[in-house]
């Protein structure tokens, strides 16, 4: 057993005092008081305000950029283009495709071409409006399926396929031969905007030694550091990046936009010697930042008369827009999860991430999983209908259980609570009775109930190197600071890290505070994505805390003159486990440590086991552990207008271990409603490559009046990797609601809408198609 496994097991065996409790997060007070915390709140009054000149067309050669009229405007202090970049004009994350400032060609709307600095935003905007860009329009390719054709217009010289991969398990031809029934359908999903309440913002200034400091709204400071250093032609150690409080992120703030905001600010700071801030407007954010990839998914599924699945063939085509961002990783997760959580003997999946001239798609909570679960779970209901089976029964016949194999032939271990999720959600929602009762609705308002099941490979798996560093410092006043470059942007996961440290050290949570994420004071720690903070960061936090505990116990043993192995820390006391009278306060021991020059700062570094699989056919261990879940949705459809009203969502998740059930419920509830928007109302519409609705008035996200009743059910089958068995739970809540809602609407209307969002027009159209 490795050291980390040992720590893990020891923790498991002990009763838990803090982990698993509904504890108030540590950053709440400043937030409810509205203290100045976010980047725009802390910008110096005299910082230059920046505006960006962006492409207005989806595909064109840039013939000329004339900055002279802008420079003549009083108050404009700088107008910078690609020529002014001292380093390398690149701001991509994976494939070398995107310049920070376009100079010869634009490949989508919203590409940055120049940045204008002035003492106020209005003057900067006047300047931006007066930068003249002359285009020679090129024909644009706007459909990812069209982009696959060999004679398609090319977005990049390298071709339109940003990434292709496949899964091959068994012999899919044989699987379809064995089938009594084969169905094939095509499903489509849309661009979804993250709509974090705080749009992207970054700020920079020069230090006296020529180095640059950046502050911004972001998920991953070290990515920003590398990006800014490259653009500025500086070594990374000459760029310090500090995360300000971040007003929601959901993915795009881990991709390229925080590089853009900070690097453009740094360029201006270097040219002018003044600090500079770039805050995106809402429409600018919605056009320029990455969104959820639209997918076109064709599924062919074979089953026996009794419902046993024999084969699945899938073709996935995603639209990553003009630049890849993290699209090539999103397609991996989509490809591996495309069958849904079922044991199917023969699987063939082909997955393409395509360039088009639409705006850029990239990271968004769920990362390819909501799209494929929408398709897979609608397909299960279509199959159930053809087989005349209850959709839940069909699923239960085929779900992943311990001992079965996933689509990538990974053996499902004991940590699989999928069956319990499905059964508990069905029971709590009264599935069987309502399925009957709602089916008898007549008249214009008809109710429906739908179910969907999911599995979600945890952390990065095949998508990157998976490690984390967490620092824990005990100060002379005995308070404990937990610091890491894993950032907090709303989930409360960093408070979860403090809970894990508190549990390990045997200290009350009231002693804890969070340090901010900063490239100077934190070790590089990988990206804050994929629900990694608890699962991977939590292990690092445990390791750091364990090292500190050793020191406290050693010094405590010296003070108490007893064997250190007999000592424990509990409720802030260091004492003898057999004799509670022999104890001293934890504060006394800390004081003694400082007197004796025992260092009380430790770093925990955890590196997840590598996922090993055959890259050719994608067979093997693709993720170290899985989160499982079931969602039941109930709706009422106005069959005259097509309007869908959600009535209730029942969501059951196997979370491994709930570190903080209160925060976890917040993740489930928030994710459910973000996904309800995805299923029912949200679509960033592109017309000829131009975003038609980049405002929160035209792009409608759920308000408090749009939410249904919700019931969350937490089920715990401890996973192999996460601390105390915890599984990823930031992302998974967005995987299922769209599918469950679509199935509920299909139940209510006896008609299938094969795409989301389920708008009134589409629902009505589907009903009319059926009646014909």
């Amino acid at each position, binding site marked *: 057993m490795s050291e980390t496994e040992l720590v893990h097991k020891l923790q498991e065996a002990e009763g838990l005092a803090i982990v698993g409790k509904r504890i*108030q*997060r540590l*950053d*709440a*007070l*400043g*937030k*409810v*008081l*509205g*203290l*100045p*915390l*976010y980047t*725009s*709140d802390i910008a110096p*009054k005299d910082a230059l305000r920046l505006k960006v000149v962006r492409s207005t067309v989806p595909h064109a050669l840039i013939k000329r950029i004339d900055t002279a009229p802008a420079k003549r405007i009083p108050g404009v202090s700088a107008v910078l283009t690609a020529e002014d970049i001292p380093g390398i004009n690149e701001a991509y994350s994976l494939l070398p495709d995107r310049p920070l400032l376009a100079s010869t060609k634009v490949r989508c709307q919203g590409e940055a071409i120049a940045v204008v600095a002035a003492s106020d935003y209005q003057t900067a905007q006047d300047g931006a409006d007066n930068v003249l860009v002359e285009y020679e329009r090129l024909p644009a390719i706007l459909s990812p399926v069209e982009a696959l054709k060999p004679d398609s217009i090319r977005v990049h010289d390298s071709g339109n396929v940003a990434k292709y991969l496949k899964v091959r398990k068994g012999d899919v031809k044989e699987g379809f031969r064995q089938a009594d029934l084969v169905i094939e359908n095509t499903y489509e999903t849309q661009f979804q905007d*993250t*709509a*974090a*309440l*705080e*749009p992207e913002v970054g700020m920079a200034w020069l230090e006296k030694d020529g180095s640059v400091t950046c502050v911004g709204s972001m998920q991953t400071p070290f990515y920003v550091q590398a990006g800014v250093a490259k653009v500025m032609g500086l070594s990374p150690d000459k760029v310090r990046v500090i995360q300000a*409080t*971040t*007003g*929601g*992120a*959901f993915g795009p703030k881990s991709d390229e936009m925080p590089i853009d905001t900070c690097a453009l600010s740094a360029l201006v700071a270097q040219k002018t010697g003044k600090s500079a801030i770039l805050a995106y*407007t*809402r429409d600018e954010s919605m056009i320029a930042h990455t969104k959820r990839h639209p997918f076109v998914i064709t599924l062919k599924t074979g089953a026996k008369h009794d419902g046993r699945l024999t084969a699945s063939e899938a073709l996935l085509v995603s639209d990553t827009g003009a630049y890849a961002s993290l699209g090539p990783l999103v397609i991996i997760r989509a490809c591996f999860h495309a069958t849904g959580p079922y044991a199917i003997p023969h699987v063939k999946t082909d997955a393409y991430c395509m360039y088009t001239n639409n705006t850029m798609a990239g990271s968004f909570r769920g990362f390819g999983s909501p799209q494929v679960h929408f398709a897979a779970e609608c397909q299960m209901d279509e199959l159930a209908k053809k087989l005349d089976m209850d959709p839940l029964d069909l699923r239960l016949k085929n779900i992943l259980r311990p001992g079965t194999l996933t689509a990538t032939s990974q053996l499902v271990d004991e940590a699989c609570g999928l069956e319990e999720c499905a059964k508990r959600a069905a029971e709590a929602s009264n599935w069987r009775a309502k399925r009957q009762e709602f089916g008898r609705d007549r008249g214009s308002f008809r109710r429906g109930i739908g179910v969907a099941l999911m599995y979600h490979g945890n952390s990065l798996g095949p998508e990157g190197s998976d490690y984390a560093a967490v620092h824990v410092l005990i100060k002379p006043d005995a308070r404990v600071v937990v610091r890491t470059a894993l950032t907090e*942007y*709303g*989930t*409360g996961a960093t408070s979860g890290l403090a809970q894990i440290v508190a549990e390990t050290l045997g200290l009350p949570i009231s002693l804890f505070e969070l340090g901010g994420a900063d490239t100077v004071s934190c070790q590089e720690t990988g990206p804050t994505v994929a629900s990694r903070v608890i699962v991977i960061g939590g292990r690092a936090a445990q390791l750091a805390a364990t090292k500190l505990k050793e020191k406290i116990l050693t010094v405590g043993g010296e003070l108490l003159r007893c064997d250190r192995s007999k000592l424990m820390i509990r409720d802030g006391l260091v004492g003898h486990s057999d004799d509670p009278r022999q104890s001293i306060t934890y504060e006394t021991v800390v004081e003694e440590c400082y007197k004796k020059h025992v260092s009380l700062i430790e770093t925990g570094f955890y590196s997840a086991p590598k996922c090993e699989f055959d890259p050719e056919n994608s067979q093997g261990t693709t993720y170290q552990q899985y989160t499982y879940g079931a969602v039941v949705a109930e709706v009422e459809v106005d069959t005259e207008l097509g309007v869908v009203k959600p009535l209730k969502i029942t969501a059951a998740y196997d979370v491994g271990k709930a570190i*903080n059930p*209160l*925060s976890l*419920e*917040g993740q489930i*509830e*928030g*994710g*459910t*409603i*973000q996904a309800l928007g995805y299923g029912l109302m949200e679509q960033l519409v592109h017309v000829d490559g131009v975003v038609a609705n980049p*405002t*929160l*008035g035209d792009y409608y*996200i*759920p*308000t*408090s*009046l749009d*939410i249904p009743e*919700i019931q969350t059910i937490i089920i715990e089958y401890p996973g192999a990797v996460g601390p105390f068995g915890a599984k990823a739970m930031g992302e998974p809540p967005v995987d299922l609601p769209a599918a469950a809602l679509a199935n509920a609407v299909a139940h209510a209307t006896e008609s299938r809408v094969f795409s989301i969002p389920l708008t009134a027009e589409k629902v009505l159209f589907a009903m009319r198609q059926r009646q014909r």
Partner: protein
Amino acid sequence: MAKHLVKFNVNGKDHALVVESAERLLDVLRDRLDLKGVKEGCGTGDCGACTVIMDGQLVNSCLLLAVQARDKRIITIEGIGTREKLHPVQKAIMKHNAAQCGFCIPAMVLAGKNLLDHNSAPSRDDIKEAISGVLCRCTGYYKLIDAVQEAAREIREDKG
């Protein structure tokens, strides 16, 4: 641009400012009075992050000109509660972990407080209606509604 002398009361304090015709109330509050708890999330009146209470009504300060606030009484998050004595809505939001990213929270606190000022026993539907002008992308609103409901209970018990 024409300049105007505007007097108004913010968080109990009188101010007299010379403002330009086109100056937004949001910018005056944030930049000139340094009330950074007032947030800008869209600038088009859609998200409600810039909500303040003006003469007992919730308003989007991004859609109001400073001159429209003449002679009004304005309350921002800075006028609600202190570290030592939080408003019951603030306390309940903390207790329910209903502040996630926190960007909408100043507006949510004001929306909750304004409701409770007018209705001490709101139903869940009343609360949903009262906060519906403020968008939140993190919580799905449930814990915020729970918090306002709990704050209402606390206020009633204190009075009772």
